[in-house]
Protein backbone atom coordinates (compact mmCIF):
# COMPACT_ATOMS: atom_id res chain seq x y z
CA UNK A 1 0.00 0.00 0.00
CA UNK A 2 2.79 2.37 0.98
CA UNK A 3 4.60 1.53 -2.22
CA UNK A 4 1.47 2.29 -4.19
CA UNK A 5 1.16 5.76 -2.61
CA UNK A 6 4.83 6.40 -3.39
CA UNK A 7 4.25 5.29 -6.96
CA UNK A 8 1.22 7.55 -7.40
CA UNK A 9 3.16 10.46 -5.91
CA UNK A 10 6.00 9.85 -8.32
CA UNK A 11 3.85 9.73 -11.46
CA UNK A 12 1.35 12.44 -10.44
CA UNK A 13 3.24 15.28 -12.10
CA UNK A 14 4.07 13.55 -15.40
CA UNK A 15 0.49 12.30 -15.49
CA UNK A 16 -0.90 15.81 -14.95
CA UNK A 17 1.46 17.05 -17.68
CA UNK A 18 0.14 14.44 -20.11
CA UNK A 19 -3.49 15.16 -19.25
CA UNK A 20 -3.10 18.93 -19.73
CA UNK A 21 -1.16 18.53 -22.98
CA UNK A 22 -3.59 16.03 -24.47
CA UNK A 23 -6.58 18.20 -23.49
CA UNK A 24 -4.91 21.28 -24.99
CA UNK A 25 -3.93 19.48 -28.21
CA UNK A 26 -7.45 18.09 -28.64
CA UNK A 27 -8.93 21.55 -28.05
CA UNK A 28 -6.50 23.15 -30.47
CA UNK A 29 -6.89 20.67 -33.31
CA UNK A 30 -10.67 20.59 -33.04
CA UNK A 31 -11.03 24.37 -32.84
CA UNK A 32 -12.48 26.24 -35.79
CA UNK A 33 -12.29 29.89 -36.68
CA UNK A 34 -15.60 30.34 -34.91
CA UNK A 35 -14.18 28.97 -31.62
CA UNK A 36 -11.23 31.33 -31.92
CA UNK A 37 -13.49 34.26 -32.66
CA UNK A 38 -15.65 33.34 -29.63
CA UNK A 39 -12.55 33.42 -27.40
CA UNK A 40 -11.60 36.83 -28.76
CA UNK A 41 -15.15 38.01 -28.08
CA UNK A 42 -14.70 36.97 -24.44
CA UNK A 43 -11.35 38.71 -24.07
CA UNK A 44 -12.79 41.85 -25.67
CA UNK A 45 -15.04 42.15 -22.63
CA UNK A 46 -11.88 42.92 -20.65
CA UNK A 47 -9.50 44.49 -23.13
CA UNK A 48 -11.97 46.03 -25.59
CA UNK A 49 -12.40 49.42 -23.95
CA UNK A 50 -8.67 49.76 -23.28
CA UNK A 51 -7.84 48.89 -26.88
CA UNK A 52 -10.39 51.35 -28.14
CA UNK A 53 -8.90 54.21 -26.11
CA UNK A 54 -5.43 53.28 -27.42
CA UNK A 55 -6.69 53.43 -30.96
CA UNK A 56 -8.38 56.78 -30.22
CA UNK A 57 -4.94 58.18 -29.33
CA UNK A 58 -3.48 56.65 -32.49
CA UNK A 59 -6.21 58.37 -34.52
CA UNK A 60 -4.58 61.78 -34.20
CA UNK A 61 -1.50 60.61 -36.05
CA UNK A 62 -3.48 59.40 -39.04
CA UNK A 63 -5.78 62.41 -39.47
CA UNK A 64 -4.09 63.80 -42.55
CA UNK A 65 -4.07 60.48 -44.39
CA UNK A 66 -7.67 59.91 -43.35
CA UNK A 67 -8.70 63.34 -44.69
CA UNK A 68 -7.05 62.72 -48.05
CA UNK A 69 -8.77 59.39 -48.28
CA UNK A 70 -12.18 60.87 -47.47
CA UNK A 71 -11.82 63.65 -50.04
CA UNK A 72 -10.90 61.15 -52.75
CA UNK A 73 -13.88 59.03 -51.80
CA UNK A 74 -16.25 62.02 -51.88
CA UNK A 75 -15.05 62.88 -55.39
CA UNK A 76 -15.70 59.30 -56.50
CA UNK A 77 -19.16 59.16 -54.99
CA UNK A 78 -20.11 62.61 -56.27
CA UNK A 79 -19.31 61.54 -59.81
CA UNK A 80 -21.35 58.38 -59.37
CA UNK A 81 -24.23 60.42 -57.99
CA UNK A 82 -24.20 62.81 -60.93
CA UNK A 83 -24.41 59.83 -63.28
CA UNK A 84 -27.46 58.60 -61.43
CA UNK A 85 -29.30 61.91 -61.43
CA UNK A 86 -28.86 62.17 -65.19
CA UNK A 87 -30.65 58.87 -65.75
CA UNK A 88 -34.27 59.04 -66.84
CA UNK A 89 -36.64 58.21 -64.05
CA UNK A 90 -38.94 55.22 -64.24
CA UNK A 91 -36.33 52.58 -65.04
CA UNK A 92 -36.81 50.79 -61.76
CA UNK A 93 -37.74 47.16 -61.99
CA UNK A 94 -40.25 47.31 -59.20
CA UNK A 95 -41.92 50.28 -57.63
CA UNK A 96 -41.53 48.84 -54.13
CA UNK A 97 -37.82 48.28 -54.51
CA UNK A 98 -35.82 49.01 -51.40
CA UNK A 99 -32.07 49.15 -51.07
CA UNK A 100 -30.98 45.53 -50.55
CA UNK A 101 -27.78 46.66 -48.80
CA UNK A 102 -27.50 48.62 -45.56
CA UNK A 103 -24.25 50.42 -44.79
CA UNK A 104 -22.70 51.34 -41.47
CA UNK A 105 -19.30 52.38 -40.19
CA UNK A 106 -17.01 51.16 -37.42
CA UNK A 107 -13.46 51.47 -36.18
CA UNK A 108 -10.92 48.68 -35.98
CA UNK A 109 -9.54 48.60 -32.44
CA UNK A 110 -7.45 45.43 -32.61
CA UNK A 111 -5.90 43.82 -35.63
CA UNK A 112 -3.49 41.04 -36.50
CA UNK A 113 -1.83 40.02 -39.76
CA UNK A 114 1.09 37.81 -38.75
CA UNK A 115 -0.78 34.77 -37.51
CA UNK A 116 -2.19 31.97 -39.64
CA UNK A 117 -5.71 32.82 -38.53
CA UNK A 118 -5.98 36.57 -38.44
CA UNK A 119 -8.94 38.39 -36.97
CA UNK A 120 -9.68 42.01 -36.22
CA UNK A 121 -12.03 43.54 -33.68
CA UNK A 122 -14.34 46.48 -34.35
CA UNK A 123 -15.95 48.85 -31.87
CA UNK A 124 -19.56 48.06 -32.84
CA UNK A 125 -21.59 45.10 -31.61
CA UNK A 126 -25.06 43.69 -31.08
CA UNK A 127 -26.41 46.94 -29.63
CA UNK A 128 -25.45 48.69 -32.91
CA UNK A 129 -27.28 45.99 -34.91
CA UNK A 130 -24.08 44.38 -36.08
CA UNK A 131 -24.51 40.69 -36.82
CA UNK A 132 -22.50 37.75 -38.15
CA UNK A 133 -21.88 37.55 -41.92
CA UNK A 134 -21.92 41.30 -42.51
CA UNK A 135 -19.24 42.29 -45.01
CA UNK A 136 -16.41 44.58 -43.88
CA UNK A 137 -14.94 46.95 -46.48
CA UNK A 138 -12.28 49.65 -46.29
CA UNK A 139 -13.51 53.24 -46.80
CA UNK A 140 -12.46 52.91 -50.46
CA UNK A 141 -14.79 49.94 -50.78
CA UNK A 142 -12.09 47.24 -50.89
CA UNK A 143 -12.86 43.85 -49.33
CA UNK A 144 -11.31 43.43 -45.85
CA UNK A 145 -13.24 40.58 -44.21
CA UNK A 146 -16.57 39.73 -42.63
CA UNK A 147 -18.12 39.71 -39.15
CA UNK A 148 -17.98 36.31 -37.51
CA UNK A 149 -19.04 36.85 -33.88
CA UNK A 150 -20.51 39.72 -31.84
CA UNK A 151 -20.76 40.70 -28.21
CA UNK A 152 -22.82 43.59 -26.88
CA UNK A 153 -20.32 46.33 -27.75
CA UNK A 154 -17.75 44.67 -30.04
CA UNK A 155 -17.55 42.34 -33.00
CA UNK A 156 -14.78 40.00 -34.12
CA UNK A 157 -14.22 39.86 -37.87
CA UNK A 158 -12.38 37.30 -39.96
CA UNK A 159 -9.69 39.01 -41.98
CA UNK A 160 -9.15 38.09 -45.64
CA UNK A 161 -5.74 36.96 -44.36
CA UNK A 162 -7.17 33.98 -42.51
CA UNK A 163 -6.66 30.42 -43.68
CA UNK A 164 -10.37 29.74 -43.18
CA UNK A 165 -11.45 32.74 -45.24
CA UNK A 166 -13.16 32.08 -48.53
CA UNK A 167 -15.33 34.12 -50.89
CA UNK A 168 -16.28 34.23 -54.54
CA UNK A 169 -14.25 36.38 -56.91
CA UNK A 170 -14.41 37.13 -60.61
CA UNK A 171 -12.55 39.11 -63.23
CA UNK A 172 -13.99 42.57 -63.68
CA UNK A 173 -15.15 42.68 -67.28
CA UNK A 174 -14.75 39.01 -68.18
CA UNK A 175 -16.86 37.58 -65.31
CA UNK A 176 -14.89 34.32 -65.00
CA UNK A 177 -15.52 33.17 -61.43
CA UNK A 178 -13.32 31.41 -58.92
CA UNK A 179 -12.80 31.15 -55.18
CA UNK A 180 -10.56 33.43 -53.17
CA UNK A 181 -8.37 31.91 -50.43
CA UNK A 182 -5.29 32.89 -48.41
CA UNK A 183 -2.37 30.47 -48.12
CA UNK A 184 -1.04 31.75 -44.80
CA UNK A 185 2.08 33.38 -46.17
CA UNK A 186 1.93 37.05 -47.11
CA UNK A 187 -1.01 39.18 -46.00
CA UNK A 188 -0.74 41.28 -49.18
CA UNK A 189 -1.64 38.36 -51.42
CA UNK A 190 -4.44 35.86 -51.96
CA UNK A 191 -5.07 33.26 -54.63
CA UNK A 192 -8.03 32.85 -56.95
CA UNK A 193 -8.57 29.18 -57.72
CA UNK A 194 -10.99 27.01 -59.67
CA UNK A 195 -11.24 29.39 -62.59
CA UNK A 196 -11.91 27.63 -65.91
CA UNK A 197 -8.77 26.80 -67.89
CA UNK A 198 -9.90 28.79 -70.95
CA UNK A 199 -10.32 32.02 -68.92
CA UNK A 200 -7.82 34.67 -69.87
CA UNK A 201 -6.30 37.12 -67.42
CA UNK A 202 -3.45 39.57 -67.63
CA UNK A 203 -1.40 41.01 -64.76
CA UNK A 204 -3.08 44.15 -63.45
CA UNK A 205 -6.65 42.97 -64.14
CA UNK A 206 -9.08 43.80 -61.36
CA UNK A 207 -10.69 41.00 -59.34
CA UNK A 208 -14.05 41.87 -57.79
CA UNK A 209 -16.53 40.10 -55.50
CA UNK A 210 -19.42 37.99 -56.77
CA UNK A 211 -22.86 38.15 -55.14
CA UNK A 212 -22.99 36.09 -51.98
CA UNK A 213 -24.88 36.18 -48.74
CA UNK A 214 -21.95 38.03 -47.19
CA UNK A 215 -20.54 40.35 -49.82
CA UNK A 216 -22.13 42.88 -52.13
CA UNK A 217 -21.11 42.33 -55.78
CA UNK A 218 -18.41 44.20 -57.71
CA UNK A 219 -16.34 45.32 -54.74
CA UNK A 220 -12.62 45.34 -55.51
CA UNK A 221 -10.70 42.46 -53.92
CA UNK A 222 -7.37 43.05 -55.64
CA UNK A 223 -5.35 43.04 -58.82
CA UNK A 224 -3.90 40.08 -60.72
CA UNK A 225 -0.22 39.72 -60.04
CA UNK A 226 0.55 36.45 -61.75
CA UNK A 227 -1.53 34.24 -63.97
CA UNK A 228 -0.56 30.61 -64.35
CA UNK A 229 -2.66 28.93 -67.05
CA UNK A 230 -3.39 25.32 -66.30
CA UNK A 231 -1.08 22.76 -67.82
CA UNK A 232 -3.61 19.93 -67.62
CA UNK A 233 -6.72 21.62 -69.04
CA UNK A 234 -8.26 21.64 -65.60
CA UNK A 235 -8.35 24.78 -63.48
CA UNK A 236 -6.13 27.83 -63.64
CA UNK A 237 -4.64 29.63 -60.70
CA UNK A 238 -4.21 33.35 -60.11
CA UNK A 239 -2.13 35.24 -57.58
CA UNK A 240 -3.95 38.39 -56.56
CA UNK A 241 -2.47 41.41 -54.80
CA UNK A 242 -5.03 42.65 -52.27
CA UNK A 243 -6.35 46.17 -52.77
CA UNK A 244 -6.88 46.67 -49.02
CA UNK A 245 -3.84 47.15 -46.79
CA UNK A 246 -4.90 44.75 -44.04
CA UNK A 247 -2.18 45.89 -41.62
CA UNK A 248 -3.51 49.45 -41.58
CA UNK A 249 -7.23 48.95 -41.13
CA UNK A 250 -8.80 51.81 -39.20
CA UNK A 251 -12.21 53.07 -40.29
CA UNK A 252 -14.25 50.39 -42.02
CA UNK A 253 -17.62 50.08 -43.69
CA UNK A 254 -20.08 47.40 -42.61
CA UNK A 255 -22.47 46.08 -45.21
CA UNK A 256 -25.58 44.08 -44.46
CA UNK A 257 -27.30 42.29 -47.33
CA UNK A 258 -31.00 42.46 -46.46
CA UNK A 259 -31.76 39.26 -48.37
CA UNK A 260 -28.59 37.53 -47.22
CA UNK A 261 -30.20 35.22 -44.71
CA UNK A 262 -32.78 34.06 -47.29
CA UNK A 263 -30.00 33.37 -49.80
CA UNK A 264 -27.92 31.49 -47.25
CA UNK A 265 -30.86 29.31 -46.20
CA UNK A 266 -31.80 28.51 -49.77
CA UNK A 267 -28.21 27.66 -50.73
CA UNK A 268 -27.62 25.52 -47.67
CA UNK A 269 -30.37 23.13 -48.80
CA UNK A 270 -28.44 21.94 -51.82
Amino acid sequence: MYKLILFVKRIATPLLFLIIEVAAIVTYTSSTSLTRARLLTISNEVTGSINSSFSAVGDYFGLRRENDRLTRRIVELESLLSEWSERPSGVRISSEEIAPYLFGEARVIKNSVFSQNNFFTIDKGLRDDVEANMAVLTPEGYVAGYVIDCSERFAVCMSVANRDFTMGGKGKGNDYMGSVAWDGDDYHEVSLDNIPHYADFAPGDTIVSTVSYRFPPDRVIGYVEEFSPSSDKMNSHLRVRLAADLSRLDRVLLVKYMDGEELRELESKY
Partner: protein
Amino acid sequence: MQRTIEYILFFVLVVLLQALFFDNLMLSGLVVPLYYIVFVVLLPVKIGRFWLLVLGALLGATMDVAMGTAGLNTIATTAVAYLRPVAMNLSMGKDVAHEIIPYGGAITRASFVLYATMLIVAHELIFFGLESLGAHVFYTLAKVVLSSAVTLVLTLLSARLFRQMVG
Protein backbone atom coordinates in the same frame (compact mmCIF):
# COMPACT_ATOMS: atom_id res chain seq x y z
CA MET B 1 4.69 29.41 -1.76
CA GLN B 2 6.84 32.42 -1.09
CA ARG B 3 5.82 35.94 -2.15
CA THR B 4 2.39 34.89 -3.36
CA ILE B 5 0.97 38.40 -3.72
CA GLU B 6 3.97 39.64 -5.70
CA TYR B 7 3.64 36.72 -8.08
CA ILE B 8 -0.13 37.23 -8.52
CA LEU B 9 0.49 40.88 -9.45
CA PHE B 10 3.33 39.82 -11.76
CA PHE B 11 0.99 37.32 -13.49
CA VAL B 12 -1.66 40.00 -14.11
CA LEU B 13 0.93 42.51 -15.31
CA VAL B 14 2.53 40.03 -17.71
CA VAL B 15 -0.83 38.98 -19.19
CA LEU B 16 -1.94 42.60 -19.68
CA LEU B 17 1.40 43.61 -21.22
CA GLN B 18 1.16 40.74 -23.70
CA ALA B 19 -2.52 41.20 -24.59
CA LEU B 20 -2.59 44.99 -24.76
CA PHE B 21 0.91 45.85 -25.93
CA PHE B 22 2.92 43.07 -27.56
CA ASP B 23 -0.04 41.55 -29.43
CA ASN B 24 -0.85 44.95 -30.96
CA LEU B 25 2.73 45.82 -31.86
CA MET B 26 2.76 44.42 -35.42
CA LEU B 27 6.40 45.34 -36.11
CA SER B 28 7.01 42.64 -38.66
CA GLY B 29 5.87 39.10 -39.33
CA LEU B 30 9.27 37.94 -38.11
CA VAL B 31 9.22 39.59 -34.69
CA VAL B 32 6.28 38.34 -32.64
CA PRO B 33 7.52 38.32 -29.03
CA LEU B 34 5.68 35.95 -26.69
CA TYR B 35 6.87 37.97 -23.71
CA TYR B 36 4.51 36.43 -21.15
CA ILE B 37 6.70 33.32 -20.73
CA VAL B 38 8.89 35.49 -18.45
CA PHE B 39 6.45 34.54 -15.68
CA VAL B 40 7.41 30.85 -15.89
CA VAL B 41 11.11 31.78 -16.20
CA LEU B 42 11.00 33.82 -12.99
CA LEU B 43 8.82 31.59 -10.78
CA PRO B 44 10.55 30.74 -7.45
CA VAL B 45 13.46 28.32 -7.55
CA LYS B 46 11.95 26.01 -4.94
CA ILE B 47 8.45 25.81 -6.38
CA GLY B 48 7.23 22.22 -6.63
CA ARG B 49 6.95 20.59 -10.04
CA PHE B 50 3.22 20.19 -9.55
CA TRP B 51 2.57 23.90 -8.92
CA LEU B 52 4.94 24.86 -11.70
CA LEU B 53 2.83 22.79 -14.09
CA VAL B 54 -0.49 24.14 -12.79
CA LEU B 55 0.66 27.77 -13.02
CA GLY B 56 2.15 27.21 -16.48
CA ALA B 57 -1.11 25.70 -17.75
CA LEU B 58 -3.12 28.52 -16.13
CA LEU B 59 -0.94 31.15 -17.82
CA GLY B 60 -1.27 29.37 -21.17
CA ALA B 61 -5.04 29.06 -20.87
CA THR B 62 -5.34 32.75 -19.99
CA MET B 63 -3.31 33.73 -23.04
CA ASP B 64 -5.40 31.36 -25.19
CA VAL B 65 -8.52 33.32 -24.32
CA ALA B 66 -6.76 36.66 -24.75
CA MET B 67 -5.20 35.78 -28.11
CA GLY B 68 -8.02 33.56 -29.38
CA THR B 69 -5.69 30.60 -30.02
CA ALA B 70 -7.79 27.83 -28.42
CA GLY B 71 -5.08 25.65 -26.85
CA LEU B 72 -1.89 26.65 -28.66
CA ASN B 73 -0.52 28.78 -25.79
CA THR B 74 -1.43 26.09 -23.25
CA ILE B 75 0.45 23.42 -25.22
CA ALA B 76 3.60 25.54 -25.44
CA THR B 77 3.53 27.02 -21.93
CA THR B 78 2.79 23.73 -20.14
CA ALA B 79 5.67 22.07 -21.99
CA VAL B 80 8.01 24.88 -20.92
CA ALA B 81 6.84 24.56 -17.30
CA TYR B 82 7.52 20.83 -17.43
CA LEU B 83 10.99 21.37 -18.92
CA ARG B 84 11.97 24.13 -16.50
CA PRO B 85 13.57 21.95 -13.79
CA VAL B 86 15.70 20.25 -16.46
CA ALA B 87 16.78 23.58 -17.94
CA MET B 88 17.59 24.87 -14.46
CA ASN B 89 19.75 21.85 -13.64
CA LEU B 90 21.60 22.08 -16.95
CA SER B 91 22.34 25.79 -16.74
CA MET B 92 22.64 26.72 -13.07
CA GLY B 93 23.29 23.44 -11.29
CA LYS B 94 23.91 24.00 -7.59
CA ASP B 95 24.27 27.80 -7.86
CA VAL B 96 20.56 28.26 -7.28
CA ALA B 97 20.32 26.26 -4.05
CA HIS B 98 20.17 29.33 -1.79
CA GLU B 99 18.31 31.69 -4.10
CA ILE B 100 14.62 32.52 -4.03
CA ILE B 101 14.11 33.75 -7.57
CA PRO B 102 16.26 32.36 -10.40
CA TYR B 103 18.05 35.63 -11.14
CA GLY B 104 20.92 37.51 -9.51
CA GLY B 105 22.69 36.56 -6.28
CA ALA B 106 24.90 33.52 -6.72
CA ILE B 107 23.60 32.94 -10.24
CA THR B 108 25.94 34.19 -12.93
CA ARG B 109 24.50 36.22 -15.76
CA ALA B 110 25.72 33.69 -18.32
CA SER B 111 23.89 30.83 -16.66
CA PHE B 112 20.68 32.86 -16.43
CA VAL B 113 20.92 33.75 -20.13
CA LEU B 114 21.44 30.08 -20.98
CA TYR B 115 18.51 29.03 -18.79
CA ALA B 116 16.15 31.71 -20.16
CA THR B 117 17.21 31.02 -23.76
CA MET B 118 16.41 27.31 -23.45
CA LEU B 119 12.90 28.05 -22.15
CA ILE B 120 12.15 30.90 -24.56
CA VAL B 121 13.35 29.04 -27.65
CA ALA B 122 11.43 25.90 -26.65
CA HIS B 123 8.31 28.00 -26.15
CA GLU B 124 8.47 29.87 -29.45
CA LEU B 125 9.52 26.75 -31.36
CA ILE B 126 6.48 24.80 -30.13
CA PHE B 127 4.15 27.77 -30.65
CA PHE B 128 5.17 28.80 -34.16
CA GLY B 129 5.93 25.23 -35.23
CA LEU B 130 2.43 24.07 -34.38
CA GLU B 131 0.85 27.23 -35.74
CA SER B 132 2.37 26.81 -39.20
CA LEU B 133 2.21 22.97 -39.07
CA GLY B 134 5.38 22.47 -41.07
CA ALA B 135 4.57 25.00 -43.80
CA HIS B 136 7.14 27.72 -44.61
CA VAL B 137 9.93 26.03 -42.59
CA PHE B 138 12.67 28.63 -43.05
CA TYR B 139 10.33 31.54 -42.47
CA THR B 140 9.10 29.90 -39.26
CA LEU B 141 12.67 29.23 -38.06
CA ALA B 142 13.65 32.85 -38.73
CA LYS B 143 10.56 33.91 -36.81
CA VAL B 144 11.55 31.70 -33.85
CA VAL B 145 15.13 33.06 -33.79
CA LEU B 146 14.23 36.75 -34.06
CA SER B 147 11.21 36.61 -31.74
CA SER B 148 13.23 34.66 -29.15
CA ALA B 149 16.02 37.25 -29.28
CA VAL B 150 13.57 40.08 -28.58
CA THR B 151 11.84 38.07 -25.85
CA LEU B 152 15.23 37.30 -24.25
CA VAL B 153 16.15 40.99 -24.06
CA LEU B 154 12.76 41.81 -22.55
CA THR B 155 13.16 38.91 -20.10
CA LEU B 156 16.58 40.18 -18.93
CA LEU B 157 15.17 43.66 -18.31
CA SER B 158 12.14 42.27 -16.49
CA ALA B 159 14.28 39.92 -14.38
CA ARG B 160 16.44 42.80 -13.20
CA LEU B 161 13.40 44.92 -12.29
CA PHE B 162 11.66 41.98 -10.64
CA ARG B 163 14.74 41.17 -8.57
CA GLN B 164 14.93 44.77 -7.32
CA MET B 165 11.27 44.86 -6.39
CA VAL B 166 10.82 41.39 -4.94
CA GLY B 167 14.38 40.63 -3.83
